[in-house]
């Protein structure tokens, strides 16, 4: 029996309704009510990955191993990866069919966050670029 079939069988409720048909609340992980061990495994994997990514971030700052101007990009990539680890292993937001609503809400949130942060940085950098330096303005008033 494949792993997917196994999970499918576990999700069958007492009233014959299949768990597969019901949405999952964020944070929920259907493993059957007694399987604490496999739930623990998920959290341990999450903690391990998050620790690795955190150590990598702090280590990157002091290293000469990569090209210095690339460090900020690498830090941002590591942070996004770690946020993904937290979402999957701690909040249990996955792309499974029972999680569609949660993932769609997340996608909308990410869209707004990207628009707000990216748009602000873009516009303000543009303004800075086009704005006359303060002493030039002073000279014009003279």
């Amino acid at each position, binding site marked *: 029996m494949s792993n997917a079939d196994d999970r499918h069988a576990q999700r069958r409720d007492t009233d014959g309704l299949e768990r597969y048909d019901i949405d999952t609340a964020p944070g929920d992980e259907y493993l059957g009510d007694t399987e604490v061990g496999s739930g623990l495994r998920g959290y341990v994997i999450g903690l391990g990955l998050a620790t690795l990514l955190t150590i990598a971030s702090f280590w990157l700052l002091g290293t000469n191993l990569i090209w210095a101007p690339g460090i900020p990009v690498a*830090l941002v990539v590591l942070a996004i990866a770690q946020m993904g680890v937290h979402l999957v292993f701690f909040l249990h937001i996955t792309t499974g069919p029972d999680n569609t609503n949660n993932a769609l809400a997340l996608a909308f949130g990410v869209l707004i966050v990207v628009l707000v942060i990216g748009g602000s940085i873009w516009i303000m950098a543009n303004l800075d670029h086009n704005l006359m330096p303060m002493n030039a303005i002073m000279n014009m008033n003279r």
Partner: protein
Amino acid sequence: MTAIDVRERDPYRLHGGHGHAPGHGDGGPAPIRIVVGYGFWIFLLSDIVMFSAFFAAYAVLAGKTAGGPSGAELFDLRNVAIETAALLLSSFTCGLASLAVTARRSSWFYVAMAVTFVLGASFILLELREFAHMVARDAGPTRSAFLSAFFTLVGCHGLHVTAGLLWLLTMMAQIFAKGFRDDILRRFMCFSLFWHALDIIWVALFTVVYLLGASR
């Protein structure tokens, strides 16, 4: 063709196969636990959108030090690393607490929650100590636009953690007084989501504020 065949071929129900699934238009409303969790998830996302505005303000103002100290001079990365470890471990122990709730093991639950509280409280203490040091060396929120944005962003996260600590104690008291009742379990689910979300925001925060600030 049975219902399972349809599901295998179209697991996301893109072609409108509903069967008798609750919460999908047919078969009645979704269970309360799903509705509560989804609503709280929407709240968390709106909270993250609010934080994104503070992040945007910080990113724009990070270089505007008005002749005052810059981030690279002020930040103590060892302190930040300890704060990060405390919050990450507290997220893990919060996960252990939710496993304990699933297994209805109350002693395990209290221990995990107590450890979570201690880790969260030490995070807050370290942050307050850092703030006090900065204010003492004339780098308070009124010194420059950079520091105003810094204290707003980091302080707002700290307030969230403080609120989370109060909520944590409330949840321990409620489980103690009322037991593993359905409504209490839903509240605990919301609490654990909140606590994990705070850690996600901290990941963005230590990267954008401290690590990028120190590498500037």
